[in-house]
């Protein structure tokens, strides 16, 4: 129903909008500082993620040692720049004499593999359902939303644990379990966006032109939701890395002969009193990588969708 208040030109710069400083037809220029630092997020995040990716891809060439090589003469040695350190083990060794740097590099492989594959899986599955639910509405939407609500009534960690118990140990199962838990988050957020786009008159216009539903979803709805999906993908990578670390910390993720950051942390925790560095390095690795994913996600959100420029949600 059209009402008068919606019949104003969208750009009428009223006094009210004036006092808020909101943009009107006489738009004030976006603050330079704001623009610059938001793109800083993007570049910094991208740089970090790229750096970690390079470490993962080139680990066999970058690592000075085999990550499973135990050197019993050099157990719990500190990093090279501290007293008692050895340049052969730049970041020191763990309680079994394994080189920390090499283990970090190989651990990044697990982290990134899980991150990319799980985020992609959750993203595709969740977004697909979201678009279908948001576009068709009605009972389809109700059914999918009920499923999402049901699923989200579990604390995510508990659900992951339960799934890991039933699926069994292993990287593929970790990925599967993340996909099965996190698709709901994609679904809920993307659905909200789809519903906004759905209300746009151009979708109605396309329907009135007798385009098929599939065509409308692909041509009109998907491109509008894509920026959000990309942002969520980046953020989801961070979540996936965290969950994998958590699971390998408990011992439910990788088998014993595979190196993962969570496992390094679990090992280092036992000998925390003697060697703090063994604990700090894998922790830093996780934190920095997740930070990169988060910064990248934030930067993408702003870069891809100018509407969100002043919001930080």
């Amino acid at each position: 129903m059209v009402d008068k208040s919606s019949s104003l030109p969208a750009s009428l710069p009223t006094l009210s909008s004036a006092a808020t400083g909101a943009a009107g037809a006489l738009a004030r220029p976006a603050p330079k500082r704001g623009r610059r630092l938001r793109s800083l997020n993007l570049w910094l995040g991208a740089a970090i993620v790229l750096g970690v990716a390079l470490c993962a891809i080139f680990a066999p060439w970058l690592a000075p040692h085999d990550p499973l090589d135990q050197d019993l003469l050099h157990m719990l040695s500190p990093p090279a720049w501290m007293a008692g350190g050895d340049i052969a083990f730049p970041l020191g060794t763990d309680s079994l004499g394994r080189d920390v740097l090499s283990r970090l590099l190989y651990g990044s492989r697990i982290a990134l593999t899980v991150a990319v594959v799980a985020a992609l899986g959750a993203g595709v599955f969740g977004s697909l359902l979201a678009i279908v639910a948001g576009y068709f509405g009605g009972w389809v939407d109700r059914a999918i939303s009920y499923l999402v609500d049901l699923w989200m009534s579990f604390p995510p960690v508990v659900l992951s644990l339960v799934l890991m118990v039933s699926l069994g140990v292993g990287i593929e199962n970790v990925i599967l379990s993340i996909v099965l838990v996190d698709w709901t988050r994609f679904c809920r957020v993307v659905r909200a966006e789809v519903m906004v786009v759905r209300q746009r008159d151009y979708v109605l216009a396309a329907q009135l032109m007798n385009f098929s539903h599939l065509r409308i979803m692909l041509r009109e709805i998907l491109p509008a939701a894509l920026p959000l999906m990309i942002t969520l993908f980046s953020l989801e990578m961070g979540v996936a890395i965290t969950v994998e670390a958590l699971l390998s910390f408990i011992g439910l993720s990788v088998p014993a002969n595979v190196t993962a950051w969570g496992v390094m942390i679990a090992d280092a925790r036992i000998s925390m009193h003697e060697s703090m560095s063994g604990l700090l390095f894998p922790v830093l690795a996780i934190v920095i990588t997740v930070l990169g994913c988060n910064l990248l996600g934030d930067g993408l959100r702003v870069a891809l969708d100018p509407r969100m420029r002043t919001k930080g949600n």
Partner: protein
Amino acid sequence: MLRLIVTVLSRRLVSAIPTLLMLSLVVFVVLRLIPADPLAMMLPPNATPADAAVLRHQLGFDRPIIAQFGIWLLNALHGDLGMSIGFQQPVTALIASTLPATLELCLAALVVSLLISVPGGVLAYAVTDRRGEFPVGLTVVLMQSVPSFLWALLLIAVLGVYLPILPFAGRVGDGVPMPHLTGFLLIDFLLKGEWGDWLGAVRHLVLPSLALAFGFAPLVIRVLRSSLLDQRGEAYVAVARLRGVSESRILWRHMLKNAALPALTMIGVQFGFLLGGALLVEMIFSFPGIGNLMIQAVRNNDLVLIQGIAIVFCVLMLLINAIVDTLYVILNPRLRKPS
């Protein structure tokens, strides 16, 4: 108003029951798909297949799944959640003895979270488009990038090992007797007038609740900042400014209350993170809560116990959601009084 609260709350709780049933069924089915054989742990190594069959029949594992679920449900309604294979104790008793610890921890963490995130969110909002925006923003994102179990380890490393000022194991010091009244130590010690032990309990609570809080607070800070930014563009803010109301009054009396609503919804949704974080944090701090119990159950493949705890977690989540919904209705006059 009281009637409204009761109506809304009861309506939410009633509608949560079918959800709970569905969730129990899901957990039940998922756990039956386990590749490992749960019986293997309970049988002595020299057991014959016949012994296994007897045990299987005894535990009811040979009935169809729906029948098993029905039996489990019936028992659950009577308060019997089965017998833990690993601990050889009733699941209900195990949960009852550990749940208060987790609740106490989560409540403390929530309070600390809010104490950090309300001023934090306002600060993050206030520096938007100003010089401080990048450092503050980066700090928040950095905080957000550290999951609570890593916060736990970092806090132990810094405040427990490097500077040994706070304890990081258990709920009370060695040799301190547990009061066993409500299960909430902060209340129990007060009731008994044991000030020293009360203080000890508080000290043991500090690091774990900080770890949880640091994991949760950045989420609240971000959503608070975002809703404040949304409010900034609203007409009533501009009009108040034109009436001469001071900026600080606009922020604290007008905007914050409006911004709290979406933040409240977000807190409800994200509460799962807090509960989930409690699992690892309790494990790391040897805190005797149901999170820790769950980890042990998972390690032991103790299906019955896992199931029981999972359901309890679901109950907690549904309860929190119902409370948040009720709060939302109370705070939002548009829902209380339709136009």
